[in-house]
């Protein structure tokens, strides 16, 4: 047991029992971050801020929400939006933050790809990040069902039905997920459980693991240079802060993040109060009606690229049904990002994309293709739209098939040089 002395003050009292000073050093003032970074490195902290908004507003909404098909719509649209003081604000913040979270996740993800932050010791950062992406997707989907509007119901209908594509057990799986033969009260209540308990627990745990995975390989920098963190930290601690290539997480790194978070949240509140339709689809303000199919069913914008890969294959090829090809492509699209560190065959070389010519082209083709998929995922899939969707989906699959080839070639060229 530690030697307990009479405390010199509250902090010292705590320190003797919890080692708070050592803890703060490890987590904050001596957690070293490269100096050579840009604002894209603040996206993680922006995501934490948004997650905090989601958590707090979610708790407030939970006090009035009723997970019952007969009560859900009115508990959201009347009780919360009209009766509860500032209930509308919590709901708007919750809805807009969900959408904004995905925007930042995509920026965060593309930043990781661009600067090669997914490989050479950073594979676990990438993999836990992808687990978070999937967990947030499930969280967003389950949350979207809760207001029990038209889009809640029909999106649930369409998405749960996708599982019927699983060979042999598909139909049984759909019923198991729904808890009923159709999307009904049992479905709403179980997705409510997922949204407010199970998935948030998973997300909190994986966020902690995601942070932990950063500690050993350290944060990347914008020239993807490998730093000797111990030596750099020593230089910093000796007071030669200008010479050192690192800064402590607190207060130096976070002081910049606070600024970026503030900048983003200013825009966020503009969206919350004046421009929220993109995140709160008007169709979902119509109560769920199983007898009335909306003219256009589409997921939220952040799932559209995925959705378009699914429906891009609209004709049978070689005797395989269009729906099956689409489902296979859909499963591929949802797993292939996990494999990115292993598809990049130039494993020992890390550099930003602008120093990797072939990869640079690949990266921007991926960005543009995913935006095309996103836009065409919303447009009615008729005429030329269906073909644009088809070719964009093929390009998406093709990009991941050629990635090992171009990176292998890049590795060989690197060896010669």
């Amino acid at each position, binding site marked *: 047991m530690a030697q307990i002395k009479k405390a010199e003050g509250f902090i010292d009292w705590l320190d003797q029992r919890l080692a708070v000073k050592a803890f703060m050093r490890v987590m904050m003032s001596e957690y070293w971050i490269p100096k050579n970074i840009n*604002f894209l490195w603040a996206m993680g902290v922006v995501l934490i801020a948004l997650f905090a908004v989601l958590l707090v507003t979610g708790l407030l909404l939970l006090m009035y929400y009723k997970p019952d098909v007969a009560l859900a719509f009115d508990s959201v649209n009347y009780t919360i939006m009209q009766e509860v003081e500032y209930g509308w604000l919590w709901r708007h913040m919750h809805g807009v933050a969900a959408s904004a979270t995905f925007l930042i996740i995509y920026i965060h993800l593309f930043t990781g790809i661009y600067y090669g932050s997914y490989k050479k010791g950073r594979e676990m950062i990438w993999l836990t990040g992808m687990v978070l992406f999937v967990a947030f997707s499930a969280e967003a989907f389950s949350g979207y069902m809760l207001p029990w509007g038209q889009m809640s119901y029909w999106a649930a209908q369409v998405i749960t039905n996708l599982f019927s594509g699983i060979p042999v057990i598909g139909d049984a799986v759909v019923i198991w997920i729904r808890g009923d033969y159709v999307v009904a009260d049992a479905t709403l209540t179980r997705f409510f459980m997922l949204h407010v308990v199970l998935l948030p627990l998973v997300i909190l745990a994986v966020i902690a693991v995601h942070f932990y995975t950063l500690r050993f390989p350290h944060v990347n920098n914008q020239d993807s240079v490998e730093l000797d963190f111990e030596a750099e930290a020593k230089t910093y601690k000796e007071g030669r*802060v200008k010479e050192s290539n690192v800064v402590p997480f607190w207060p130096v790194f976070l002081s910049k993040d*606070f*600024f970026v978070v503030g900048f983003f949240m200013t825009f966020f509140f503009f969206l919350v109060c004046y421009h929220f339709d993109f995140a709160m689809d008007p169709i979902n303000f119509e109560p769920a009606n199983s007898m009335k199919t909306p003219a256009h069913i589409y997921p939220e914008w952040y799932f559209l690229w995925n959705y378009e890969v699914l429906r891009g294959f609209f004709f049978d090829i070689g005797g395989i049904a269009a729906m099956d090809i689409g489902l296979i492509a859909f499963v591929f699209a949802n797993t292939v990002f996990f494999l990115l560190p292993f598809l990049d065959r130039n494993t020992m070389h890390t550099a930003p994309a602008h120093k990797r010519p072939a990869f640079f082209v690949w990266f921007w083709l991926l960005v543009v293709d995913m935006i095309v998929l996103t836009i065409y995922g919303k447009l009615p899939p008729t005429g030329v739209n269906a073909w644009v969707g088809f070719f964009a989906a093929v390009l998406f699959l093709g990009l991941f098939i050629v990635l090992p080839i171009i990176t292998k070639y890049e590795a060989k060229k690197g060896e010669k040089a």
Partner: protein
Amino acid sequence: MREVKILAIVVFFTAVTYWGVEPYAHSQMHPHVAPADFGFKEMEPLHVNGNADNGKLLVEANCIACHGIKSLGLEAPMSPEDAASSYGVVPPDLSHAGVIYDKNYLAGFLKDPVRATKLSHKFNDAKPYAMPSYGFFSDQEIADVVAYLQNIVATKPSDKGVFEEACGRCHSMKYDALKAQTPSASMKNYLGAEAPDLSMMIRSKKAEYLSTFINEPLKMVEGIAMPRVGLSEASQQQVIAYIEKVGDRKKAERESLGVKLIGFMAIFTLIAYLWKVSIWKRAA
């Protein structure tokens, strides 16, 4: 200025994506239609001046057997339930009909209700419309009835009043404790569809859509059971104002709070920036 360049790239791709999934996608899903026609141009306008005194006699002889005129103390002859089961739908009270509905529309409606409401896909000789046609009236008599209905309106109806008379026979407004006068079972039987509750319509359809839709529902939704109601532009605005008041009650609060929230975050950002600059000057 590398950061500014990166920001410009991020903003550009975000903006393109936004444009594609919002304004562009919606323009493709909901093609533009001509704005609402409050002139009711396809109906022949009234070109005789009505005589309200003669109109009074005509209304007393022809209308009040089914319609009430509450402002004159004339209650509807039947209870809403009885009226709904007799006619299919509760006949409207005529207290403010003279100002709520457009003059030319009223005249066209009296002559040929199915044509004026554009419900020929719902009603025909086999299934007649509840309101009989007064095509046998002369133009002068039609004008007299319209003049009388205009004449009896003493006070302008409230926004809610217009809604109750023009929409409330079929539509409920649950969030304002307003129940449709016609029971929903009768509605379904009468028009082949239930009339939706309008509490959240302002959020699900938006004011811009409603301003075209109410004037001519068929133009926006093919085969829809909702009639063209024939509201004047001013009374339609009152209806939309009421729908907004019920469905988006916190709009004013939202818009005034927005400025404060943005201002708060802007000040936070400025302070954070100054703090960042001072820290990086010393410690980085």
